[in-house]
């Protein structure tokens, strides 16, 4: 178990849970960040924040501190990026 913000580009995994509160939490749920969703970390912005993940076949950007609220399970063999 790790936070999404700890992963590096190329890492893949599954969402366990979005822990945040209020607007951010709600928004994450709406965008499909719910338990069981698979994702891949695509890249970081040129200045290092926000990050971009691929989820449900589309691209989602979120800030690092938003990514900190998301607990994920990393798929080990893919985390070579």
């Amino acid at each position, binding site marked *: 178990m790790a936070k999404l913000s700890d992963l590096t580009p190329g890492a893949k995994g599954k969402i366990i849970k979005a822990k945040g509160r209020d*607007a951010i939490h709600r*928004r994450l*749920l709406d965008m499909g960040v*719910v*338990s069981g969703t698979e994702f891949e970390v695509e890249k970081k*912005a040129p*200045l290092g924040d926000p990050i*971009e993940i691929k989820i449900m076949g*589309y691209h989602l950007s979120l*800030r690092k501190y938003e990514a900190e609220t998301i607990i994920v399970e990393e798929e080990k063999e893919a985390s070579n990026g």
Partner: protein
Amino acid sequence: MAKKLKIALAGNPNSGKTSIFNNLTGARQHVGNWPGVTVEKKEGTCKYNGYEINVIDLPGTYSLTAYSIEELVARDFIIKEKPDVVVDIVDASNLERNLYLTTQFKELGANVVIALNMSDVAEKNGMNIDAKNMSQLLGAEVIPTVGHKNRGMKELLDAVINTAENKTGLEEHPIAYGKEVNPEVEKIQRILSKDSSLVSQYSPKWLALKLLEGDSEVIKVAENSSVWNEIQQVVNKSRDYIQYHIGEDAETLIADQRYGFIRGLTAETVQRPELERVSISDKIDKVITNRLLGLPIFLLFMYALLKFTFSGSGFMVGWFEGFFEWLGGAAAAVIPEGIFQSFIVDGIIGGVGGVLGFFPLVLFLFLGIAILEDSGYMARGAFVMDKIMHAFGLHGKSFLPLLIGMGCTVPALMASRTLESRKDRLITMLVNGFIICAAKVPIYALFIGAFFFKSGATIFFLFYIIGVAVAVLMARLFRIFLLPGKAAPFVMELPPYRVPTIKGILIHMWERGWMYLRKAGTIIVAVAIIIWIGFTFPQEPKYSRDYEAMASQIEESYAQQIAPIAAGFASEVNKIKEKEVFAKFMEVDSKFSAALQELEEGSEEYTGLEKKREICFGELRERYPEKAQLHTQYLALTSAKDEQLAAIENAMAAEHMEKSYAGRVGHSIAPFFKPLGFDWRSSIALLAGFAAKEVVVTTYGTLYSMGETDPEEAAPLREAIQNDPFWTPLKAISFMIFCLLYIPCFVATVVFHKEAGSWKWTGFMVLYTTVLAWVASFIVYQGGMLLGLG
């Protein structure tokens, strides 16, 4: 009579909703606002098979919560207006997330038809979607469409009519919500059904779900119910139960269940390719938001946007200016000289021209923005810039309005609409005026030219930086003290890159451009007239000197001097034998004069013509020296007379302005500006600067008795200011600081008001910018005096 239907178009942003709306309604569109909020409402009609279908475009949303205005607007429309059918546009290549909204329409009890849009893209990606099966599982017709190619519209409309007539989309919606949630929903539903007026307005199941989720708006509705106490009890118990037994709040659990249902649905109806191909869009993105290239590419695009907006619109600005000049001239020719002519020409035509003068700029800007938005770059720009903007308490998307502010604050304020959160929008708008706009540049050119000529560029750049710094600082302060809270989350879709359609971007551009005209236009004309009245009346103030008598005295004295010379000249000319030669010369001369007027002074052609004429004159002078001498004398006298008369006229204009109502106001507020080192001229100029910033320069021109001054070519005025013992470099800096910070022009203020939507915020903006400008200038001037820089 055609049968009438009312349908709502709904869907995620980037689902291709707009192109379907355009396909269905064509040019029969109407853009307005949803009542009470600044969310665009588009409506159109569509005639099909004997039906007249009223199509309402709901805001693009991902969900139907109470967290954003757009989502509230969309769901309120469905609840209150009860459209016959809700056409839910679903991006087939991005099914799961798009269907999330669909599940919520079903919860609402809406009559749904699904447009499986961009089905060609999905197919190309190797996806195979069983629309028939999906339709059965969802309880709604599913029609494959390709919006931007206008495919599937007929089938979609057939399905709409079929669904409306047979209510086939109403089937009970199939999500189970699981064995923990479902019994709780049913319990709440049972209590709700006791209030018959409540359940006649809302679907009880939806209400129950929303109460469980803790939806603030639905709670407000339920609070008015006769059984609110009971409802509250049951809801709280259920929420606690779910939290305790599952360790998850109800909101999350319900979202999980919705997505769980969607997973099951797509597993049964969608076949995906074994290996996912890397799409072209992903390849493009690898370059465009690359760690090294991302920022330079961003800067390049922004430079291109500014260039496109401000240079690209140049030709059209020329047309508009030409047209209004012509119109003013035509009106002046028809209407007899006097106050009414001035009202029409300067007040109304000038005012309307002022509004329309911005219009090409606004159109080009919106065109550029539409291309950036529709191609998918806009979200990337925000992605690249967010770290910087966020450090200042702003959102990644704020970069655009701030950047456009370098050209003109008016379109900049309008561009802040791309920000979703109202707080972010307000903060961005409140600080936008500090970015030096194009109209302020002449002010800096004037004063920097007069006092800091040697290091002009550096000083000017410094002021730019000060403007940006103040904007950033104020944004930070507003975020902390005035509109506290975090900037809107950056949880944002980065849509796939697409080639925008010409029709799409043109419609986009026109809608927003028209909105600008309609919203800002009327007030701007009214304010222009008020400003005109302020500077024109009283028409005949008590002048300190009798300018007319002075003028006629000059006329008389010169007439006495000129008359004998003119008579002598005429008799000399009569004596000339080769009359034809002389006549020919006169003809050449008049042709030259006409041509010279058309040309720009100092241009190559101009100096060429001037030289030729000089040569002609020289020849003539050689042949008839006495006549030439008389002629030169005559010319010298008349030009001296004209100069003196102009000086009197300019002095009169200066005094007229000084004694006009606006001038008197300027005089009376001059003491307020004294601690900043400004005189009464400056206070009038600042007042006039509210009309448009470059007017500060032209007003100084009038007040320094320079006559009409071109803000771009103010050399004589610069000298006058330089030579005026009143001004010192310190005062000039203080004045430039004030101009940097005080209220933007009234067009920008009006647009601010329209975008902010409340007098409270407009009042605040006017007040705080003025106070800030005063305090900053005070510190600069008084501080400078203390340091002995005065």
